[in-house]
């Protein structure tokens, strides 16, 4: 019944949007108060239909649709003052979502832990989930200050976040490259300042100070489309109401620090310049790690609480949950420093290609140590320096016969290839690095990322291919998609296919979560 209701609401949403919006004057954004207030955003309906599912996973799904979301983003900009020497603007963004797959699939619903399910289906708190950004922007002469909740993007690459270190990700409902930053990044309250100098190279100075607003990375919930499959994280049948992944990740969230100026402050500095036809930036960031390391003394007893509950469930043949959350801390978010930079230039003599370089050096990055690097055998923590470098080459290509054909209608193929390499210095086999896609014994990892875009039929269609391949661990992802931009200005439809592979070859402790997540992606988007 709930399933029918969800489908009905989905259809109703689309119909209402169609009726209400197609007859409006063609204007993407709404302007009020003599253009002082500008509102824009989107509403979209997204579905992922699984095309591969192991027999074990099928036991926990009634349908192949394990992601069906209505989501919206509204952003408003109010210009309070605009003159030659002083501009003051207020900016705010709100997002909202309704995940309906648990409503149309009772089996799926039952196998998402109830605490997570509530948060997964709707935003849970105004500040954490609904308010994306809220800041005042003051521009006076060469100075600019943004004060408030913000999402900061450092770096120039498409998907790889090499120099993009400021805001933590929120991967519960989306991924970078597919969804907007407002959907997959967590805003932080901060003060951000710029100074445009007249020095050689047009040096632009930027600083950021976060007065203690800590937010950790959000990872996908157990049993959901992006999350760990239920059967992989629930070893006991019957067992507790939730899997061990939920038990650990909930504690991860609970142990995350909150506002604290003294302990959680973060600061950063960046310079942007232009020298010898190269645009470059240098950055420095000091803050707490978005992800935690486990306390080696407590992770085992904490995990044992779950295992004990699981064993008791097995012995008594009914669900027994672990006791309430212990008071002690299991996860710690430690401070470290990142230095990095970017450079980009266009080299006409090299087939007219654009080259982008990004690098980071994480100094004393906290890592866990575990027997043979297995995250379930943690015995200590340590610090390591980690160097990452990405090099991207972009080019627009004129394909003979095709570019000027009736399909491409004059639009060239846009292609970029990125090579990313990372090295952990002073590496040993006990470092827990699976989440960084390192092979167990390898101090380095590398991947190739490819992005291809071809507008078709006077850009009414757009073909996009995004893919990556981890050369050492063999994991890969390929997402071809085609978008149709409806006549007018508001509607857009995307059809794509996400394929994943190589996880079985990816080494002992590398993540295999996505190995069976191949899906058809359907997305209808109304933009205003």
């Amino acid at each position: 019944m709930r399933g029918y209701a969800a489908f009905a609401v989905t259809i109703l949403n689309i119909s209402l949007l169609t009726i209400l919006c197609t007859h409006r004057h063609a204007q993407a954004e709404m302007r009020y108060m003599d253009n002082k207030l500008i509102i824009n955003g989107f509403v979209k309906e997204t579905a992922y239909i699984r095309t591969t599912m192991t027999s074990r996973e099928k036991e926990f799904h009634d349908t192949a649709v394990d992601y069906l979301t209505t989501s919206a983003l509204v952003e408003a900009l109010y210009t309070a003052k605009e003159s030659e020497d002083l501009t003051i603007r207020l900016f705010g963004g709100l997002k909202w979502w309704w995940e309906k797959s648990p409503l149309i699939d009772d089996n799926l619903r039952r196998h998402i832990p109830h605490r997570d399910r509530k948060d997964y289906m709707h935003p849970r708190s105004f500040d954490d989930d609904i308010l994306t950004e809220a800041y005042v922007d003051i521009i006076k002469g060469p100075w600019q200050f943004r004060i408030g909740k913000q999402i900061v993007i450092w770096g120039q690459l498409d998907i790889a976040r090499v120099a993009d270190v400021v805001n933590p990700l929120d991967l519960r409902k989306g991924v970078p490259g597919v969804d907007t930053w407002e959907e997959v990044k967590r805003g932080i309250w901060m003060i951000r300042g710029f100074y445009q100098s007249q020095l050689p190279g047009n040096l632009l100075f930027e600083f950021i100070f976060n007065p203690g607003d800590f937010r950790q990375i959000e990872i996908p919930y157990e049993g959901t489309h992006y999350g760990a499959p239920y059967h992989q994280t629930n070893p006991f049948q019957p067992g507790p109401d939730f899997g061990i992944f939920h038990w650990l990740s909930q504690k991860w969230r609970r142990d995350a620090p909150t506002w604290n100026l003294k302990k959680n402050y973060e600061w950063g500095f960046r310079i942007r310049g232009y020298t010898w036809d190269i645009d470059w930036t240098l950055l420095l960031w000091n803050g707490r790690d978005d992800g935690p390391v486990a306390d080696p003394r407590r992770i085992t007893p904490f995990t044992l609480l779950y295992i004990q509950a699981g064993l008791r469930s097995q012995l008594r043949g009914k669900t027994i949950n672990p006791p309430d959350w212990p008071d002690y801390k299991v996860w710690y978010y430690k401070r470290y420093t990142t230095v990095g930079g970017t450079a980009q230039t266009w080299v006409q003599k090299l087939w007219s290609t654009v080259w982008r370089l990004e690098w980071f050096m994480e100094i004393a990055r906290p890592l866990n140590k575990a027997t043979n690097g297995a995250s379930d055998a943690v015995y200590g923590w340590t610090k390591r320096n980690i160097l990452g470098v990405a090099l991207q080459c972009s080019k627009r290509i004129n394909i003979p016969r095709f570019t000027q054909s009736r399909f491409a209608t004059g639009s060239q193929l846009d292609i970029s290839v990125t090579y990313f390499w990372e090295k952990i210095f002073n590496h040993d086999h006990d470092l827990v690095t699976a989440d960084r896609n390192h092979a167990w014994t390898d101090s380095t990892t590398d991947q190739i990322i490819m992005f291809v875009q071809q507008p078709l039929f006077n850009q009414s269609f757009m073909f996009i291919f995004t893919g990556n391949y981890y050369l050492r661990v063999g994991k890969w992802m390929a997402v071809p998609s085609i978008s149709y931009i409806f006549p007018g200005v508001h509607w857009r439809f995307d059809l794509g296919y996400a394929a994943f592979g190589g996880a079985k070859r990816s080494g002992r402790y590398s993540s295999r979560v996505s190995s069976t997540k191949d899906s058809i992606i359907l997305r209808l988007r109304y933009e205003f």
Partner: protein
Amino acid sequence: MRFKQFQKMTVGICITVMFVMVPVPAGAVEVVYPVPAYTPEELAKVREWEKTWAGKKIDKTNIDQVAEFFPSSYVELIKDPERWHAPEEGNWFMIIPYQQILEPTGVIEATKKYAPLVKTDAEGVITNYTEIAGMPFPDPKTGLEIAYNMECNTRGDTYKMMWHAPNINPRTKTDRLAKQEFTEMFFIHRTEVDPRPAIPKNPKGYHKGQFMHMYLPPEMLNTRFITMRHIDWNKEDLSYLYYAQFRRIRRLSTTERTNAIDGTDQIYDDGNMWDGHLSRNTYKYIGKKEMLLSRRQDMSKTTRRSGQGFANGYDYERCNTYVVEVFNKDPNYLYSKRVWYLDAETYTIMWQEMYDQLGRFWKCFCNHTQNIKTEQGEMKNFMVGYTMQDFQRTHSGYTDMTRYQPIKIGIPVNPNIYTLSNLQKTY
């Protein structure tokens, strides 16, 4: 007596020799500018013709009678309204009487001051390019001289406008909209806005800067773009894009000048009819030709329905044009030939025909201009619209630059808008 005669003769010869031999200062040569499109005799004939045609509506029933003044492709377009998804009344436009257009005082004064000082090399290339302003060749004799006049029209030195630009598919009867705000500023050849004729502090040698803020299509909302054109013909443009959706500043390659702009029929070289260095082409002056030009166009009078390839209600007036054939030096260039029809008074390209690599006729673009009051209080004939037709693919484009806000010409523009920090401002 004889001696007196000899004396008179000698004095006379001396005076004659003095007049002949003493060099006359270059500045003393009277530059004739502005030059009307017609001589009085020619104008009389035009006025006679206008007695029949001015105020008349031209549609498929009578287009043949004025076809000699219209590109043949557009004659066929008027005759075939179904192909271009015209409404029941068909495609039509009006004829209005010719009026001479005068450039602002700054252009006239600069032309008179600098035209005599223009120095060229053996190939006709101006060697003191950064020191001049106004029309360098008020009485052009070659295709390159006409092209220089076109390029030195700085459109009021600075301007800001917002355009409404549907990308039209008459076959599917649909529009896809683009809305963009565009600010351009010339660093040299300035005639209206101080400092003139050039901005003194220009260490990077910029010719002009362009800043574009995109509002439509929605996925491009608040995406911004700057392009800096260098004076040095050997230096390519410097271009950056701030892609709002991903909040990243991207350096762009600027050599793919033949890439279609956002699915339109226009390539990057087609901006303002030609938006590249003059050195990339060779120019062949064909002669003068009278054409119907839309150069006093009130865009609000035009009407168009979704998918209609050619708007109705344009005002065209008969006017002389310079016809120049333009050949790109790259043998693999997208177009084998362009034909420019330049307004003989403003040197604006009002019509342009393009031919594909096999020499087949491909596209025809029409520029619509209007006299607009500048910030300095003068009238400047300025582009207000654009019509593009791809006759091979039956695809169209239409631009109205006055739909959202008046075009502002000669406004003070802060050069800081062409910086990366401006690209990522909050909008």
